[in-house]
């Protein structure tokens, strides 16, 4: 929609940060974007982004990923957004805003969301080269560039929330990092002395140097004018190449001051409970630039959002007010949980503390309790698990004693107070102000049955995300309470989990699916045909345990053929037009020139599209089902075997060339990768398994992104587990170090068999490791320390697998009955499927997609031969 200026009322928003964007969304929700012309002036060169997550730029999030602005939204609502064009002056008498570019906008309503600016203490040389602030993406880009080219040491002025983030970022950039904090402890606003001590210990353990109780007196510069150090108030001098000022922020109210709006003594545009400026009813101020009606400037995003909603509602002539906000926060700083809520510092009269402190473990928990037992607030450092529940209980008398709320569970009396104990009016999501009652309503009235549905319905959990865990517990509790049994069963056919079915199959040596279904399936599923979920899952369990339970090790044998997913059934990967791709195993990625030539000749002779895969092998696409046996006959003749690219099984073990060729290599990584790939080939598992072996710490094989990854050390091998690439990347965790060849293989045997035994269907090792109780420590206990006494069994199961492995393609091409299945048409074995066609692209083939639609007449017959 494009409105003619003057014809419809105009809202001008100055500032497009997180709060500004939220204000626009609130306008749209209330239909105001349809009735008003909306103009946004944004100073930064990019539209609103997630400033709270700014530091995640250094862990790989791009500025694009940080963006909070959906340009479709801006366009669909006809919002005129001018980036890189800040408002310069406001003429309130004429109701006009002039932007830096010279554009002039008349307004009916003006909304100031100018945010704040970093406070830089007025010390000499504060603007020297090498001094930075930490506020915008541009600041981060500048810090990154300077750190990479000109700095080895960095210091952060300010040990608050942002200061710690900045220090972590500097450390991540490879700098020796210092934090200089004027107050006697870190995060003085959020935590007390005890919490600060716990935090200090953890931060120092990470290799950061903390100087508390000292101020910065001067920035020392060299002859070229660049930073070389800083003088501190205790007389010492700290050598540093780079300084980041992160000593708090101040409201950006200059535009308001210049236009004669009232500002507070210590800054902030004075507004009333509707977020309207006290000076001019046509002007509003929201977010960090506003001095709210309760006399505070709020630097957190949740109150800013609430102000944005309030202003939008007021403009729409709805009733709303902002009278103050909860300053509770929960953060993960440098990997440490820090939370404070309610009256964290115990300022109420007569209040009492309950404190649990374990500085060795970096734990500190304090609750502030009123005389009558009311929970008033608290601080959690190192473990903020209970934050969601405790914050919601604030203001009431908890149903169990306060000390049991802070003691660790293993201390005996520690009680886990679930969110079901909360009253309905307790706020679960403070970003969106969603109460427990609303969430319960989403389940009972709106029939939401999953957390994603509840998030969509209520918006809860879509802000900072810190309440999602409590949300999940509430949804489960509510479903259970309303009689919806939360079924943990594998599918509609089995009430057991995959792990339970594995145990049944192994213990009772059940080796057919039908037997398992008829004896252990749900009542109404027995005697039936099962479903597409449990058949492959049980097929996989039977295949993993085949030699032990007396089943055939060949996945297409007898009943097993009917259980396999379509890909496994044809031992190839189905592509979108019904053709298949073929991947021969290339162990460790090592292949002879003759091997390459064979693959090349086969691909050429069958007209296949070839592509190098990420797992160091070659994928051949475009094979018709009837061509698969012909292709594989030639591959098997040349010594290739199945690569199991179609299976939930071991895929590849990548490698770098290692010690044999590389100047840096310390072990023979190729040999180890080949050994591992040949050992575990054909092993069926809950999901695919990927691995890699790197010959030195440079990690060229990317082993830490694999289900099990091996990195050479001068003393042997380090084993990492639970890594993942793909949509949710996860770095693998170190399981054990400096292993010999035999120790390494024994440990991987145990690890894989323990995973196969206990994982859910389609659960990669990364999610499994995060899910199972006790996580990595538990897995280490089981597979390294043998805490369950099952390692011998795990090893023997793997030994059975290794001893009985046979290449399933070699078996298939020697079995006429199985080969008969590889036809497009059972009644016309020589006729290819006419829907499978190809067209040329870049010298190879690609699927002829129009063919999939042209011949598509499912209900009416027409001859088309």
């Amino acid at each position, binding site marked *: 929609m494009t409105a003619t200026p003057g014809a419809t009322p105009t809202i001008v928003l100055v500032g497009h940060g997180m709060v500004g964007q939220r204000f626009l969304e609130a306008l749209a929700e209330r239909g105001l974007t349809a009735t008003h012309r909306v103009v946004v002036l944004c100073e930064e060169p990019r539209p609103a982004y997630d400033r709270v997550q700014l530091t995640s730029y250094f862990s790989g999030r791009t500025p694009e990923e940080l963006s909070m602005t959906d340009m479709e939204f801006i366009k669909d609502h006809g919002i005129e957004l001018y980036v890189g064009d800040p408002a310069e002056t406001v003429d309130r008498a004429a109701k006009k805003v002039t932007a830096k570019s010279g554009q002039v906008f008349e307004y009916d309503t003006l909304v100031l969301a100018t945010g704040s600016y970093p406070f830089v203490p007025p010390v000499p040389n504060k603007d020297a080269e090498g001094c930075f602030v930490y506020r915008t993406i541009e600041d981060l880009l500048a810090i990154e560039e300077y750190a990479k080219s000109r700095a080895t040491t960095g210091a952060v002025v300010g040990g608050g929330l942002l200061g710690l983030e900045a220090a972590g970022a500097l450390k991540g950039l490879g700098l020796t990092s210092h934090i200089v904090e004027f107050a006697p402890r870190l995060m003085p606003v959020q935590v007390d002395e005890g919490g600060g001590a716990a935090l200090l210990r953890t931060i120092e353990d990470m290799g950061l140097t903390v100087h508390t109780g000292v101020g910065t007196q001067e920035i020392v510069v060299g002859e070229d004018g660049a930073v070389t150090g800083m003088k501190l108030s205790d007389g010492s001098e700290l050598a540093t190449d780079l300084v980041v000022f992160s000593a708090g922020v101040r409201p950006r109210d200059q535009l308001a001051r210049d236009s004669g709006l009232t500002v507070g003594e210590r800054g902030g545009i004075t507004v009333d409970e509707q977020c309207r400026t006290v000076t001019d009813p046509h002007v509003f101020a929201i977010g960090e630039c506003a001095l709210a009606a309760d006399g505070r400037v709020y630097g957190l995003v949740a109150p800013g959002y609430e102000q944005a909603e309030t202003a939008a509602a007021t403009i729409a002539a709805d009733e709303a007010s902002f009278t103050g906000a909860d300053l509770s926060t929960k953060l993960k700083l440098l990997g440490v949980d820090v939370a404070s809520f309610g009256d964290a510092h115990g300022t109420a009269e007569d209040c009492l503390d309950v404190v649990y402190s374990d500085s060795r473990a970096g734990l500190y928990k304090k609750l502030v309790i009123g005389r009558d037992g009311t929970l008033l607030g608290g601080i959690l450092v190192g473990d903020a698990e209970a934050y969601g529940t405790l914050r919601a209980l604030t203001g009431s008398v908890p149903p169990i004693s306060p000390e049991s709320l802070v003691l660790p569970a293993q201390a005996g009396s520690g009680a886990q107070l679930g969110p079901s104990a909360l009253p309905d009016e307790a706020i679960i999501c403070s970003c969106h102000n969603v109460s427990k009652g609303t969430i319960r309503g989403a389940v009972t009235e709106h029939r939401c049955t999953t957390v994603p549905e509840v998030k969509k319905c209520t918006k809860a959990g879509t802000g900072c995300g810190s309440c999602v865990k409590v949300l999940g517990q509430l949804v489960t509790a509510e479903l259970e309470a309303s009689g919806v049994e939360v079924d943990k069963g594998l599918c509609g056919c089995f009430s057991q989990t995959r792990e339970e079915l594995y145990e049944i199959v192994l213990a009772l040596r059940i080796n057919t699916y039908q037997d398992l279904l008829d004896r252990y399936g749900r009542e*109404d599923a027995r005697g039936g*045909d099962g479903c597409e979920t449990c058949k492959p899952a049980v097929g996989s369990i039977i295949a993993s345990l085949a030699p032990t339970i007396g089943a055939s090790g060949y996945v297409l044998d007898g009943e097993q053929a009917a259980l396999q997913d379509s890909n496994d059934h044809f031992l190839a990967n189905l592509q979108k037009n019904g053709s298949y791709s073929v991947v021969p195993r290339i162990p460790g990625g090592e292949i002879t020139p003759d091997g390459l030539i064979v693959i090349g000749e086969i691909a050429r002779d069958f007209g296949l599209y070839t592509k190098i895969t990420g797992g160091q092998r070659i994928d051949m696409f475009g094979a018709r089902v009837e061509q698969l046996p012909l292709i594989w006959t030639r591959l098997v003749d040349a010594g290739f075997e199945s690569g199991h690219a179609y299976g939930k099984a071991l895929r590849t073990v990548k490698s770098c060339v290692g010690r044999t060729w590389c100047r840096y290599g310390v072990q023979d990584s190729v040999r180890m990768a080949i050994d591992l790939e040949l050992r575990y080939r054909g092993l069926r598992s809950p999901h695919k398994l990927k691995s890699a072996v790197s010959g030195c710490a440079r990690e060229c094989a990317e082993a830490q992104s694999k289900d099990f990854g091996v990195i050479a050390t001068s003393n042997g091998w380090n084993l990492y587990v639970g890594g993942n690439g793909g949509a949710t990347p996860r770095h693998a965790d170190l399981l054990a170090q400096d292993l010999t060849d035999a120790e390494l293989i024994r440990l991987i045997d145990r690890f894989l068999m323990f995973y196969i035994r206990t994982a859910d269907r389609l659960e990669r090792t990364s999610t499994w490791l995060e899910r199972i109780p006790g996580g990595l420590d538990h897995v280490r206990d089981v597979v390294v320390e043998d805490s369950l006494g099952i390692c011998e069994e795990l090893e023997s199961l793997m030994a059975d697998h290794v001893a009985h492995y046979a290449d399933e393609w070699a078996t298939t091409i020697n079995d006429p009955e199985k080969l008969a299945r590889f036809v497009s048409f059972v009644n016309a074995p020589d*006729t290819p499927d006419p*829907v499978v066609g190809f067209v040329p692209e870049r010298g190879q083939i690609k699927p002829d997609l129009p063919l999939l639609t042209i011949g598509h007449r499912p209900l009416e017959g027409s001859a088309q031969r």
Partner: protein
Amino acid sequence: MTLAPETTDLKIQLRLEDDDWFTVCDLHRLVPGRGVAALLPDGRQVAVFRDRTGRLYGIDNRDPFGGAAVLSRGLTGTHQGRPFVASPLLKQRFDLETGQCLDDESVRVAAYEVRTQ
């Protein structure tokens, strides 16, 4: 078009629109729980399935969502007492007796009457 060689086994037959019964293949070619594809005289493709009790079903072989002729390669099962196949492309399920898609009520594929002779 080459037809499968004659045997003494039972034959699977499909009823076409003109009430003719069309012979597809020998019964033993079907593994219980899996399907095969057959080419009809008019060029259409049909997916024929056999469940664990020996009952036979025939539906159109084309996946109406993806367009490829692959329904015969899907996994079969029982949902609320009714037999279905899940497409190997994007897993939508189709009722084997009626051709009705169980995941999108506006989609249905042709279903055929099947017998052994």
